């Protein structure tokens, strides 16, 4: 029982980090049709900007995080502007973008490694008081991360449901030509999507690194598997599905880690992903591309 509860506690925190990451990843796919496999490398690079500001510029980690978020937004915007969009314009096969993204991911990860070396890093940050209830243990840091997750997901919900930009994003995702015929400047909507989802990516990278404690340039390399599993579980292209998928995958992988071997996390996620692709390619709830 206690293994179950403590694993569940871990699962909830992993789920919070994964939810932030997957929502950004899914928005990129839904609105701009790019399966951005370079997402993990943008996450870890953003986490390192936070690290730099925290460790070398002596900023409080939470303040430094703003730099990480900013980095994620700008890097993702530039990536779309100068890499993905030019490739998309040429009307190549969709797989081309995936391969390009994979290349960018490797450059991002190992480029970072070339700069910072192979050692491990951690933020100067206290975990805070330990709080436990119902047999689960949380540090203050972890509770803050979960709080950030709830606030961020709430903001994304508000954006998509109630703002002009959010509705334009969903319209562009559903039918880009019709959106243009309605007067929506879809190029701007797509740029905004990359800025916002990139900010989520930078945030996810930083809280991922905070939650892991120690990290290096390759720490987020396999994270893409968890994001893909969470995205397909919720239905590709659905931001709400991504939130639910992330919670499920986060909890499932940590529970399995509690009972078996933590090394199998990605394997479990991959099995879920394969199962989804085989039996429910539009997600647990989706029928087709849903928002």
């Amino acid at each position: 029982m206690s293994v179950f509860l403590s694993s569940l506690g871990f699962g909830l925190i992993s789920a919070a980090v994964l939810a932030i990451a997957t929502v950004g990843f899914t928005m990129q796919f839904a609105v701009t049709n790019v399966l951005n496999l370079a997402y993990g490398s943008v996450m870890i690079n953003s986490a390192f900007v936070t690290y730099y500001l925290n460790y070398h510029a002596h900023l409080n980690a939470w303040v430094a995080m703003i730099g990480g978020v900013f980095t994620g937004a700008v890097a993702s915007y530039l990536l779309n502007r100068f890499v993905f969009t030019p490739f998309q314009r040429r009307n190549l096969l969709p797989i081309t973008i995936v391969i390009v993204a994979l290349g960018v991911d490797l450059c991002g990860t190992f480029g970072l490694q070339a700069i910072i070396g192979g050692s491990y890093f951690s933020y100067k940050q206290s975990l805070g008081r330990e709080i436990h209830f119902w047999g689960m243990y949380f540090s203050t840091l972890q509770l803050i991360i979960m709080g950030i997750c709830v606030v961020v997901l709430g903001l994304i919900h508000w954006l998509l449901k109630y703002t002009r930009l959010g509705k334009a994003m969903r319209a562009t995702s559903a039918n880009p030509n019709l959106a243009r015929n309605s007067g929506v400047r879809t190029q701007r909507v797509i740029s905004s999507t990359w800025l916002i989802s990139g900010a989520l990516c930078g945030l996810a990278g930083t809280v991922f690194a905070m939650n892991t404690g120690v990290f290096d340039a390759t720490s987020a390399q396999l994270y893409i598997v968890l994001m893909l599993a969470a995205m397909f579980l919720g239905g590709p292209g659905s931001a709400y599905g991504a939130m639910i998928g992330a919670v499920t995958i986060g909890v499932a992988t940590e529970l399995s880690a509690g009972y078996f071997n933590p090394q199998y996390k990605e394997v479990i996620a991959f099995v879920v992903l394969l199962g989804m692709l085989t039996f429910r390619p539009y997600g647990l709830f989706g029928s087709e591309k849903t928002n």
Partner: protein
Amino acid sequence: MSVELTKQGLVLSTNGLSAGYDGRPIVSDITIEATPGKVVSVVGPNGSGKSTLLKSLVGVVKVLEGHVTVGEHEITNLAPEEVAMIGVGYVPQIDDVFPPLSVKENLEIGGYLLSRREIPGRIDAVLDFFPKLKTMMTRKAGKLSGGERKMLAMGRVLMLSPSVLVLDEPTANLAPMVATQLLEEFVRGFADFGSTVLLVEQRAKAALRISDWTYVLGGGKVVLAGAPKDLEQNPLFVESFLGGSAPSRSTSNE
């Protein structure tokens, strides 16, 4: 009606237009005109290039030669969003709504170029014209019936009070009764409001009944044009479009 539904129409015309995909023309040498207060229809067999022609007018398909003008504006190869801004509302043959968005959100996107304050009033005006939509504002567009969906698709373009309406087979897949109502009540209604209506229709008989002028497209060219009552006298036209002996799929409707 509280607010006017459409703006005073503008003349939509093409001059020697050719257009197509990947630099290869599908339609060529098209010179047509649609004027305010009139329904101008384009009929023709499947694959004759009707949709391609309409798409080239609204910036979806590239114009390779010739010109398109709306009123004083030359709109040849303008981006679709700029064509919308000039006042041309386009309802495509397929993919004419945003399925995951609610009816209300579809209308809001239709009014994307309006200020936040103008949108509720415009939605009311559109709902006055399509009262049936009133009861389904929160339903997802993907869940509407064919007829409801077409009303929504038209309602979406009416949000910007267009001067010109470009409609691609609005009655496709509709039951004959619904199709007739849609054409006679709504499409004719737009023209009676003073708008310019360019209509592509498979149902030749029904199209003629509400049209002031009709172009016949064949193999990407205008092969015949005239007022409906003259076309109805034309043996060639009658044979191929109004249920003569020629085997053309376009005669099967109606």
